[in-house]
């Protein structure tokens, strides 16, 4: 896979990002210090259950956090510039132009009172001076690229005249018309039929190859992740608990939560007729997050230390890392063994 396009640094580098929502009831720490790098051509899947902070994290890259949400720490560096220090005009320049986003629900993500053509052209004219004719031509090319037939007619139609899958294709066309370096897809296939899902995924994959852009793919569907992603980050309660190459995450998961997630998806090819194992309990209350590991109360391996402090990251091969005290137990045991037998 064409991972390294020869550029020096990563395209996107998120370091210790913290996002909080200041609600009347108190501060909700939605994203609690996450870091990752993303290079051109890479597809990073961010997986987690709803409320794990995966969408909030993506919105903060685009500067789309709505009050009372605020980035309270860390940095987001896009092509070497810290996005969080951008002024209004710079953010506007970035949105839709260098970084684009597609959303979960294509039914409500398009404005019902404007035509498809209006809405695609608008994305183009917001960033460059183009004549109406040129804009129309590029919009039609783009619709053609995302597999919409009869684009000339579609340009004049309103969103409600199109099916869900068609609308999501329009959303993709809209996101890609300015040829962005990074595409953020927030559960783009969740609201669609399974057959349409597969088509949309294939479309995104082919465009990524052609344009050599990076994709952040946010989903709670592990099956989708396996299809399209090169790397995966698993989020739980505002933390990335495990991240690594897609194969490592699927075939050698380290964190108990990832393990639980994988056990809870049905597999068609599984011969062993093993039962699906759900993860017990409910996610933590983000309003009063406990001091230790947020997964601890649902974890079968829970230890005393888990309830007291958040675990540090333990690195494995190929950039695979996980935050769990289990791996530190091994280190600790070794250390203790060395101390007890200093002479050896």
């Amino acid at each position, binding site marked *: 896979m064409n991972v390294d396009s020869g550029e020096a640094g990563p395209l996107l580098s998120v370091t210790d990002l913290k996002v909080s929502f200041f609600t009347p009831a108190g501060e909700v720490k939605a994203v609690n210090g996450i870091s990752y790098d993303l290079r051109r051509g890479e597809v990073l899947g961010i997986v987690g259950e709803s409320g794990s902070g995966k969408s909030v994290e993506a919105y903060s890259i685009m500067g789309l956090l709505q009050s009372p949400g605020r980035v309270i720490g860390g940095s987001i560096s896009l092509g070497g510039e810290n996005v969080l220090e951008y002024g209004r005009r710079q953010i506007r320049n*970035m949105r839709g132009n260098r970084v684009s986003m597609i959303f979960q629900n294509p039914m409500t993500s398009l404005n019902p*009172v404007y035509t498809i053509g209006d809405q695609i052209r*608008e994305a183009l004219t917001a960033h460059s001076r183009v004549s109406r004719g040129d804009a129309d031509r590029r919009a039609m090319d783009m619709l053609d690229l995302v597999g919409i037939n009869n684009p000339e007619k579609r340009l004049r139609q*309103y969103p409600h005249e199109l099916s869900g899958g068609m609308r999501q294709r329009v959303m993709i066309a809209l*996101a890609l018309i300015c040829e962005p370096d990074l595409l953020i897809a927030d559960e783009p296939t969740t609201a669609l039929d399974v057959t349409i899902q597969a088509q949309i995924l294939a479309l995104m994959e082919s465009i990524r190859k052609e344009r050599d852009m990076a994709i952040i793919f946010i989903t709670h569907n592990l099956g989708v992740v396996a299809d399209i992603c090169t790397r995966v980050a698993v989020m739980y309660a505002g933390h990335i608990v495990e991240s690594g190459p897609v194969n490592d995450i699927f075939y050698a998961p380290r964190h108990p939560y990832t393990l639980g997630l994988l056990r809870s998806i049905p597999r068609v090819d599984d011969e062993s007729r093993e039962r699906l194992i759900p993860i017990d309990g409910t996610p933590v209350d983000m309003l009063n997050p406990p001091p230790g590991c947020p997964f601890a109360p649902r974890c079968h391996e829970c230890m005393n230390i888990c309830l007291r402090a958040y675990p540090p990251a333990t690195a494995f091969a190929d950039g695979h890392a996980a935050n769990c005290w289990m791996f530190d137990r091994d280190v600790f045991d070794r250390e203790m063994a060395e101390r007890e037998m200093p002479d050896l």
Partner: protein
Amino acid sequence: MVEYIIKRVLLGLAALIVVSALTFLLMNLIPGGPFLSEKAPTAEVLAALEAKYGLNRPLHQQYFTWLSDILRGDFGVSFKMQKNRPVIVIIGEMFPTSVKVGVFAMLWAIVAGVSLGCFAAYKRGRLTDSVLRVVTTTGVVLPTFVTATILLVVFAGGIFKILPVIVDKNAEWYAYILPCFTLGLNPMCNIARYTRSSMLDALSQEYIRTAYAKGLNTAAIIFKHALRNALIPVISYIGPMIAYILTGGFVIETVFSIPGLGRYFVQSIQNRDYPIIMGTTIFLASFVIIMTLAVDILYRWIDPRIDLAKEA
């Protein structure tokens, strides 16, 4: 859509029948019937009159005769205020003035209400928003006769004396400022409140997020993407507003002595000129019902989301 229009027209017709039947029944309730006047007629004269006008026939027959008279524009004649003049002629003389005041009141109410509502939505949660909320709520509950009288005292009669007290037929245009302002005040505040909430609703929609993600500027997002969607539900308030403006006109025209149908109606109430009361009521009620019907159909016609809802 066609189905909806048919349904609405049928309901409108039903409402018109209810209003007319109610008017007819109440008219029959008044002792002495439609020939009541200062001088009570003798029994023979009354019987002769009743026979002449068919008042001795069954009630439902009388109703249909009366209804067909109404449909031909025969609302009866005034028996006190403009003795023996047909009610419909009086209405025809008076109504245009009321419409003039009403239209200007509505215009300023819509323009100012929408602007204030957008402004409040834009400043949501801040001090400006809270102040505007208190002001518009006060404006909504403030009875028109209170506003009208106080403004009259302040600007025309008592303190400033810059505007005329009486707005008669020969009044200059600026004489209409105060009546139109007062009449539009309540609808204006209502529209501001509607616009604010539907604007906030529109701004929280996902297509607004899409617009931000495209990199559009705030002005384009508010005026192009949010406002157009936000104004559609506001249109549905225009029907009730017409009704309000009409009945508010009774007070405004009385306080400012405007020679419109509203003031005349109030005078006819005070003089118990029943044919005028009945005629004007059924005329205005039909007017309101028909206008509301038209606005509702217009609303459906311009709202593309109706189809969306059907699909979902």
